[in-house]
């Protein structure tokens, strides 16, 4: 692993791959969650499956957590290296002249998302783990929708979630296209990838925000 990541390019590719993995997860997460808007039954079915399937719980979930940790740790490591590579700082540095804010501040959007993840885990994952593995309560396949709706009764939480989704959108709007560039994909389809990336970066966070607001307004 360490020798594999000894090169700047491979480190970037690892960032890209973990990013793409997380984007796939995010899409899957979104698809399940959006069902909560129009059908509690379907949502409960999906959630029950995800929450009890051994493959998901004991293979995919650790991989996901590993991916998240890797992506964040690597992000910070790269940033530290990059700062070192500059040496003395410029007195005047006009980053806005040649690169969009989002691309220059992935660390800020990333850190915001990390903070959000803390809250999100506290909100859903910790109670879930507690329910299933610590207190070992009896499984109720219909509890999920109610738990979800219950969380979004609180306005503060909804606001925090929506703000976080905004940063997620920023992060994705650079990350999506960037991951392809890192893996060496830059050809005549690149404009298409970029449009797709924009669609994804706006669509998914907007969808998540919609879900949160929808439940807040309909509880």
């Amino acid at each position, binding site marked *: 692993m360490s020798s594999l990541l*000894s*090169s*700047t*390019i*491979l*480190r*970037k*590719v690892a960032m890209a791959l973990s990013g793409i993995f997380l984007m796939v997860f995010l899409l899957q997460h979104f698809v399940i969650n959006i069902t909560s808007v129009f059908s509690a039954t379907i949502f409960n079915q999906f959630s029950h499956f995800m929450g009890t399937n051994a493959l998901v719980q004991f293979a995919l979930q650790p991989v996901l957590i590993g991916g998240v940790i890797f992506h964040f740790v690597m992000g910070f490591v*790269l940033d530290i*290296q*990059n700062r*070192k*590579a*500059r*040496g*003395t*700082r*410029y*007195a*005047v*540095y*006009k*980053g806005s*002249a*040649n*690169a*969009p804010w989002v*691309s*220059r501040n*992935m660390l800020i959007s990333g850190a915001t998302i990390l903070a959000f993840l803390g809250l999100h885990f506290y909100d859903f994952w910790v109670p879930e783990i507690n329910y299933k593995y610590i207190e070992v309560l009896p499984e109720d396949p219909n509890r999920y929708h109610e738990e979800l709706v219950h969380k979004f009764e609180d306005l503060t939480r909804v606001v925090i979630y929506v703000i976080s989704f905004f940063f997620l959108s920023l992060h994705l709007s*650079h990350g999506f*296209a*960037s991951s392809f*560039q*890192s*893996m*060496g*994909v*830059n050809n005549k389809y690149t404009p298409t990838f970029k449009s797709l990336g924009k669609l994804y970066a706006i669509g998914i966070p907007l969808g998540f925000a919609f879900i949160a607001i929808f439940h807040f307004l309909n509880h």
Partner: protein
Amino acid sequence: MPIPSGLINLIMKLTLKIWRQENATAKGSMQTYSLDGVSPDMSFLEMMDVLNEQLMEQGIEPVAFDHDCREGICGSCSMFINGEAHGPDRLVTTCQLHMRKFKDGDTIHIEPFRAKPFPVIKDLVVDRTAFDRIQHAGGFISVNTSGNTQDANAIPIEKADADKAFDAATCIGCGACVATCKNASAMLFVSAKVSQYALLPQGQVEATDRVLNMVKQMDEEGFGNCTNTGACEVECPKGISLENIARMNREFLSANVKG
């Protein structure tokens, strides 16, 4: 040659804040100078010449800066002007930047290109030999001079590839990409050379070793990681495309797979 007087009515007065540093080990700082009589037709370096003449008259050592061809091709000049490599204009080097891009009364910040692998030698002069060392590692095709290489037209090369190889090969090695990149990454520079050869049949034989060795040297020099901000492409005086970085990433990955 009779020399006409400049455009008197457009003469500018400027405040210059310039990084002064005695030598590589000395501590540097920004110094402020005021300069009058700047004509909009001057190039930025000609403005610096005027400043230096003025400083010498005042008994102050002139500001050291790298420059040579003054027509945008040698890649010597290297100033970071008002927060941008080669200043506010696009597709130019500092020597091609003209004072008409500034206004009377402007304050201009002038700093050396900053990167750990580009240590300051004096004032605005930096040491860019790291770039040379990257080229030593693989920036060539191993062909001896013999007069017996095959005829130049023996291998036709698709025009599109030849043109792309040329576009990559126009890199002047000035280091603006490194200076402007928030990570001080040298990917655009290295990828330009890797791409030039990757696009030509002559470059195929050594392609694997070339990209591995050049990237290894690039990393050893201490340049930062590319985060695809695209700033390098915007600030590059020759407009070298980010496509080259993607191509190098591709070449590098496939070289790693080949081993």
